[in-house]
């Protein structure tokens, strides 16, 4: 088995020329992306954009989990879904659109949402997780498994014109359960959303993943950015680990 890092081919050197001009990233960062894998939990309003930006940036492999078929109500924000794919599996639409952009991309898909049963295998297949799931049950399952496997997580969430984003290094920064030890009350299935809001956070989540993988910039480790696009406020808050956290408190 050949474990040597893959080098960039000529086509990739052309494709990524402009981003390799980014200070501290360069060709070394690009090769790290090519040799890395990211698991995106749900390819909805957030995850579609995360996956698309990572595909555009030249990530080597994506692991995607998303159940269900494309509906009209997906099309205001789930940018990997298309009108001509209505009624057909979302995960197939996502894969098709990503390969149109980047045919070199390796993609592993599962037509399911995250559960405690499928999380271990999916997390094991990736170097980093971007959690874009709408349900706290899925987020908690993903967090527990990623912490157990010591995989970094980028947590993105949005509501209305607001969003939050933080990055987690298990054992070093607060994990999701440190912040939210139990499901919050009063949440509803329906929620107000513009694609431009989920897309904003999706782009930020993709950038966090790129920074963590390539090892440059300052990821939001132990910090949470709270965004309100209604008045364009961006606040960065310091987070604290919970020493009694049921998920990561033991290490």
């Amino acid at each position, binding site marked *: 088995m050949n474990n040597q890092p893959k080098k960039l081919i000529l086509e990739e050197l052309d494709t990524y020329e402009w981003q390799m001009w980014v200070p501290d990233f360069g060709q070394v960062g690009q090769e790290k992306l090519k040799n890395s894998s990211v698991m995106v939990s749900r390819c909805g309003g957030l995850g579609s954009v995360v996956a698309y930006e990572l595909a555009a940036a030249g990530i080597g492999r994506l692991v995607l989990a998303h159940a269900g078929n494309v509906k009209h109500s997906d099309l205001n924000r789930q940018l990997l879904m298309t009108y001509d794919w209505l009624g057909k599996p979302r995960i197939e639409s996502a894969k098709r659109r990503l390969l149109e952009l980047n045919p070199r991309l390796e993609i592993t898909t599962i037509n399911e949402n995250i559960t405690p049963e499928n999380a271990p295998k999916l997390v094991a297949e990736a170097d980093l997780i971007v959690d874009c799931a709408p349900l706290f049950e899925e987020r908690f399952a993903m967090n527990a498994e990623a912490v157990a496997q010591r995989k970094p997580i980028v947590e993105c969430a949005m509501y209305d014109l*607001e969003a939050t984003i933080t990055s987690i290094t298990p054992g070093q920064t607060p994990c999701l359960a440190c912040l939210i*030890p*139990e499901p919050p009350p*009063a949440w509803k*299935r329906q929620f107000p959303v513009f694609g431009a809001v989920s897309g904003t956070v999706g782009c930020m989540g993709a950038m966090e993943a790129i920074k963590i993988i390539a090892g440059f910039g300052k990821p939001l480790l132990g910090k949470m950015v709270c965004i309100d696009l209604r008045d364009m406020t961006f606040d960065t808050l310091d987070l604290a680990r*919970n020493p009694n956290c049921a998920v990561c408190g033991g290490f």
Partner: protein
Amino acid sequence: MKIHVTYTGQLKAITKTAAETIHLPDGENTVNSLLFQIAEHYGELAHMMLVGPNQKTHRALIRFVNNTQITPGANPKLGDGDSVTLIPPISGGVNPKGNWNQILTMEC
């Protein structure tokens, strides 16, 4: 005692304000006593967001005092002029039945 409170997410929608100054009675006040006062002032929805059925404040509320996060369950004392930021966790939905078979294929 004056406390500067900032709301986000659903709390901002319920209180219809992003920030306000709340007057607490003189004497010893804590984050929990502030949350109970907010819940009482803004009624049923705020109460549901902040206080659980056991009449304790919800642990699933990210709280900051003077821009420093306090861990879930902690209840520090407040001083005059302190600022408190309350962030209800946001996400895209909830599974009302908590059934993993339903979540596995849920089309939301």
